[in-house]
């Protein structure tokens, strides 16, 4: 029987072994994260680590990959849906998908070679990035939004960003700001449901997966050192953000290279 991964042989001789051995963290198993899970299952990643405390509801059904109508009716846990999907594609995989908040499985997440954040809020992004920096984990963030202008037109936008330890962070790139965090806190509970649709999630999630695969098993030598892609869902384009120009050669002032590791580390915990 032909090797099931023979069509991705261009990723290198050791790619298959690598994807059996490493872990990718997927935080948020909803609209974006469900796409990410599906794709990594196909790629052959055997040890994903996912976290999402939410349950599937009717309003998820327009975009939650892998969710059946019964799942929606039963308010199934997104983590359970993700695990079922994963194992159906890759039966030898050993996924760790938790229905707890990612902060409660952060010891498991520390073992990630990269983390893809598919979370909704600026605050969560900021916390997740800080966690990834502390354990020297490349963090790939995706997000989308739909805005309505005063004319009544809607615009779909989004981003795919890599926050690499030692490189510019989400604050350097203007994605996380104190103003946005404060606005988000102010609107908590007052905002209506945010528009979310499946196709931009697919674009952003697929791009994030491609970036992660490129970090792990590059297939060419000209790897971009910094990635900040802006998605315009009206023109259906992904383009490097103009902000990158101002970041070339800069040092991130927001994260200290020395602030890594677990400040409460106890050697006894390792035995």
């Amino acid at each position, binding site marked *: 029987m032909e090797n099931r991964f023979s069509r991705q042989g261009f990723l290198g001789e050791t790619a298959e072994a*690598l994807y059996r051995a490493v872990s990718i963290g997927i935080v948020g198993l909803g609209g974006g994260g469900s796409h990410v899970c599906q794709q990594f299952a196909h790629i052959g990643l055997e040890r994903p680590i996912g976290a999402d405390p939410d349950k599937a509801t009717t309003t998820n059904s327009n975009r939650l990959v892998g969710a059946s109508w019964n799942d929606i009716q039963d308010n199934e846990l997104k983590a359970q849906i993700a695990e079922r999907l994963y194992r159906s594609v890759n039966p030898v995989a050993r996924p760790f998908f938790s229905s707890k908040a990612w902060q409660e499985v952060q010891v498991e997440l520390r073992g990630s070679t990269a983390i893809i954040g598919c979370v909704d809020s600026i605050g969560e992004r900021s916390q997740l990035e800080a966690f990834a920096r502390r354990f020297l984990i490349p963090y790939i963030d995706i997000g989308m939004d739909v805005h309505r202008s005063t004319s009544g037109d809607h615009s779909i936008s989004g981003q795919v960003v890599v926050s690499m330890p*030692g490189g510019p962070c989400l604050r350097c790139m203007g994605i996380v700001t104190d103003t946005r965090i404060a606005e988000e806190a102010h609107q908590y509970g007052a905002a209506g449901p945010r528009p979310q649709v499946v196709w931009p999630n697919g674009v952003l999630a697929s791009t994030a997966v491609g970036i992660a695969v490129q970090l792990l098993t590059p297939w060419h030598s000209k790897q971009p050192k910094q990635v900040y892609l802006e998605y315009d869902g009206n023109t259906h384009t992904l383009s490097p953000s103009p902000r990158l120009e101002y970041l070339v050669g800069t040092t991130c002032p927001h994260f200290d290279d020395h602030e890594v590791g677990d400040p409460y580390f106890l050697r006894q915990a390792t035995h």
Partner: protein
Amino acid sequence: MTAVLKLTQRMWVRTIADLRRPHDLAKERVGFFSCRQASLAGGGLLLLAEDYHPVADAHYLPPLMGAVTIGPEAIRDALQIALTKTASIVHVHLHDHSGATRFSKIDNSENAKLIPDFFNVAPDVPHGAVALSQTHAFGQLWDRQYAPPRTFDQIVAIGAPIRFLWSGSWKTDSLAKAS
């Protein structure tokens, strides 16, 4: 128990550049990573290099055996870092060739004498030693002062791309040199 050593690619490049500098007395240079620690799931251990400390030029002695001998001041400096920061100290030197590398007999012998010393000032954290080649690495971890060392399962330089300098469970493809 999984043992992983991670450093940023920037630190990896900086370290190799420093180790390649010529020295009047020593045939090769050495240095130390100071590392922070974290537990991994399943009892594993993660060491995160937070800084690289080259041995000062004046702290090299004429080599007694092998290519390099460092004086007591160099070791005292490293001990001080371990004590002050409760840091895991990882001794590092360069095998200046491309490809996979291992410890030589002299490396093993010298590591066995040097690394346990760090437990005298930082007994509650592990310490180790690493040999870098231009493209790969190999290293060992001492979890306790007089326990035999174990080989790191992974040594990873974090950047674009992620460079698995050593991965015990699978061979790394030919890697580009540090740049």
